[in-house]
């Protein structure tokens, strides 16, 4: 029996899905008709699935819209706008995206999403597996009163999403579904339900007190929000989302999400079959009676949750209010940082219950620790031929290896600039935090201050600080990477693509803002770029260099497809290769440019650099910068058609 791809089609059955795919399926089953998000790991692929559905199923276009928003705050308000016409809208974001969206959400949560429904999907990232920081954003659910489900399996991802929409509409409340990098990208079976066609059209009906949260309505809406939350608190038991694994032990565990799975396997490993576990599917609000009943039979309770103690605070509150004689233990064994694992939980529980963890596990940890120092670091880095890497080379050359220079980094692929060997970034804050920090720094320091920003980040929140830098004529060099893609998150077909199709120009924006010193350069011309950076750093006031060069990955894909097409038509195409001969091992290409298509090897007993032909994208930067002329270019079929990279 062939497995048909029924993840998003209206069929029944049990299919294997990732957590994020299951969230999208849940949306389809709930009749969602609008979704908006800014891409960010671990939630970017949610938008990709929506786009896949729209591509493969033209009928869905009649009612379903997905927007790649310019930033998270825009996406959140856009989702509220759609909900207020009576539709159901999904608003995915990563944990730090919630920081950006929180300004809008703090008001939308007061207003309520009726007549439609709205669910935010927050992808947490304990362990910072795909983010520049980790934070326990669960405190927002309390602060903004967002009832929140925390799924553990893909099945729960689907079921909780669907349920969140039903409840959101019924209780006029914005709901949250909180996944994590692990639950979003774990695969398991999901039982499919029928798909419901979303609302194609709605209408906004005027209701001034509801949608204008200013005094006096602000307070009234706050009162109503509390009323809604209290109603939801009452019905949690009926929802059947929390479950108890019973046991006779007087020490019990409360947990949720991914740590529940680790906890179950850790208990099994330690032979602790009698420990009762309360698994919370809904982490905010909590039902007082349910928590009290669970605590009542216990002498001690362990709360297992990643990052800062959220459930611990909320459970303590209930225990205190009900004067329960239960001791909260084990906090010292569970770190407040990084992600958890079965191994960590088994080790901690072994200490608490005075058990011995499995020898297999302790030996594994011990043996691994005995040799791990010899494993060479392999951090993520710029791809072969990346224009951003080539730009860092030019910055390093123009500043004599960053002498008296500060590089204010930002979020995008160039967040990797700080990694060795280039180490070309001094700080990173948040989206467009680099240019913003540079404005303040330049008022106090006479160092050369360089800020970097990519085109997607520029649109996200970068134009505002640029305007400020123009206004104060800040003594800063801003480098804008115009690579025409939101590259770091996987080249989504996002709003940047639509802007490009409409002929937008960062250059024109800079001119309109009144940038006093502006140049357009090419990362693949390092000598000219280096000179420009040198000249810019001699000038006082604000300078902007826009680097117009497409993301190397996408440029290479496009060029290869052009070549394939031409060859399929029987045309001969120039074949360019770069090769190394006479290498002096000066390390200009490996330490200052550090392209991963170059490797160090030995030929006939002599050390030399070598270019991996299958990884080189033919950007030609190493060929231009080799101080010994040891990198050579060869063109086969020189008279045949040349396929250059496309202009952007």
């Amino acid at each position, binding site marked *: 029996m*062939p*497995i048909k791809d029924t993840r998003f089609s209206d069929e029944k059955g049990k299919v*294997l899905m990732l957590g994020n795919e299951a969230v999208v399926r849940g949306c389809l089953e709930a009749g969602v008709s609008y979704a908006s998000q800014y891409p960010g*790991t*671990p939630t*970017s*692929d949610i938008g990709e699935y929506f786009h896949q559905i729209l591509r493969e199923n033209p009928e869905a276009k009649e009612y379903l819209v997905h927007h790649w928003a310019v930033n998270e705050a825009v996406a959140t308000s856009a989702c509220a706008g759609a909900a207020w016409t009576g539709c159901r809208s999904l608003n995915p974001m990563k944990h730090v995206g919630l920081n950006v969206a929180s300004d809008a959400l703090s008001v939308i949560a007061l207003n309520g999403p009726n007549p439609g429904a709205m669910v935010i999907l927050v992808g947490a990232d304990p362990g910072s*597996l*795909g983010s520049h920081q980790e934070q326990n954003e669960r405190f927002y659910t309390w602060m903004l009163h967002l009832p929140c489900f925390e799924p553990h*399996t893909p099945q729960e991802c689907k079921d909780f999403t669907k349920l969140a929409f039903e409840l959101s509409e019924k209780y006029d409340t914005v709901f949250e579904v909180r996944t994590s*990098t*692990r639950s979003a*990208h*774990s*695969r*398991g*079976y999901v039982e499919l339900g029928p798909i419901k066609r979303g609302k194609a059209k709605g209408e906004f009906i005027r209701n001034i007190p509801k949608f204008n949260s200013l005094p006096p309505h602000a307070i009234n809406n706050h009162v109503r929000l509390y009323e809604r939350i209290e109603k939801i608190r009452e019905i949690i038991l009926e929802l059947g989302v929390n479950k108890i*694994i019973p046991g006779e032990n007087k020490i019990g565990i409360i947990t949720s999400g991914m740590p529940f*799975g680790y906890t179950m*396997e*850790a208990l099994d*490993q330690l032979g602790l079959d009698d420990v009762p576990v309360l698994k919370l599917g809904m982490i905010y609000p909590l039902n007082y009676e349910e928590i009290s009943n669970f605590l009542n039979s216990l002498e001690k309770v362990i709360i297992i949750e990643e990052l800062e103690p959220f459930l611990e605070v909320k459970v303590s509150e209930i225990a205190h209010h009900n004067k329960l004689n239960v001791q909260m233990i084990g906090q010292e064994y569970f770190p407040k940082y990084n992600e958890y*694992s*079965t*191994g960590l939980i*088994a080790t901690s529980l072994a200490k608490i219950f005075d058990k011995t963890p*499995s020898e*297999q*596990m*302790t*030996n*594994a*940890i011990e*043996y*691994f620790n005995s*040799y791990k120092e*010899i*494993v*060479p*670091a*392999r*951090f*993520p*880095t*710029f*791809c072969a031929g990346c224009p951003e890497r080539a730009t860092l080379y030019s910055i390093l050359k123009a500043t004599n290896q960053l002498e008296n220079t500060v590089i204010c980094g930002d979020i995008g*692929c160039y967040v*990797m600039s700080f990694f*060795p*060997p280039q180490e070309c970034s001094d700080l990173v804050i948040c989206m467009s935090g680099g240019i913003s920090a540079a404005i303040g720094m330049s008022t106090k320091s006479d160092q050369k201050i360089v800020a970097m920003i990519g085109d997607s980040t520029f649109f996200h929140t970068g134009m505002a600080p640029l305007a400020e830098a123009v206004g104060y004529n800040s003594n800063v060099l801003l480098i804008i990477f115009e690579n025409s893609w939101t590259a770091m998150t*996987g080249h989504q077909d996002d709003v940047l693509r639509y802007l490009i199709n409409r002929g937008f120009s960062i250059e024109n924006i800079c001119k309109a803002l009144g940038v006093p010193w502006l140049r357009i350069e090419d990362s693949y011309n390092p000598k000219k770029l280096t000179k420009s950076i040198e000249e810019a750093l001699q000038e006082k006031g604000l300078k902007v260099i826009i680097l117009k060069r497409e993301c190397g*990955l996408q440029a290479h894909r496009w060029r290869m497809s052009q070549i394939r097409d031409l060859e399929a038509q029987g045309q001969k195409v120039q074949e360019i290769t770069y090769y190394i001969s006479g290498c002096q091992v000066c*390390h200009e290409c*490996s*330490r200052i440019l*550090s392209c*991963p298509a*170059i490797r*160090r090897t030995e030929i006939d007993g002599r050390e030399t650099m070598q270019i991996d032909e*299958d990884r080189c994208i033919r950007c030609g930067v190493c060929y231009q910068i080799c101080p010994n002329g040891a990198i050579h270019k060869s063109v086969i079929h020189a008279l045949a058609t040349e396929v250059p990279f496309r202009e952007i």
Partner: protein
Amino acid sequence: MKFKETDIINVVIAGTAGQGVISLKRLIEFAAQKAGVDIILGAEQHGLAQREGAIISHTRYQKKATDDPKKNLNSSLICYGDADLYICIEPVESLRRGIFASNKTTFVLNERTIPPILITADLDQYPSLEKIKEILKGYTEEVYTMNATELSLKEFNRNQQVNIIMLGFAIPTGKIPFIDIKHYEEVIKEWLRDPDDNIRALHLGIEKGNKIIKKN
């Protein structure tokens, strides 16, 4: 080693971005589905694809679920020391996440190295293949290596079949039980581009594995 149908099977796949770690993981999971496996859970890494980073994935399955929820597969992540099989598409990646291995683990390694950029810059050391094998032998005698990249380049003129060759190479270890070759073949036909090449790659791997891997 003979597996019971209620045993939890743990497979780690390690490599670098762009080597097809996630595709291989999915192939095994979909083949397990074909084989009628009761519980499948697997964790994969997204978000840094193509950027030369280290990639690890976990695939776990249990042919028959038991009545006791505590004895069943509950987490998509493997516990330290609990891997039955380690498929390493790049040699040193076997060590980076070696914490999941123990004396019950079987390693299959592709010999072709992808040196991190600091190795090229001569600012860090890449251990020799002999050293890597010596460390892995500290876990188990069952360490098998082949040069799947070379075979892929020779047979297909590209390195894209490396992951499937490594799967084939791992099959004779007996550490991916309850899934038949036909299940992989069916998934390859339905889900992958160039199915003929991939099925041939699978069998090239199996052939190589049969030659050097001790039957369990």
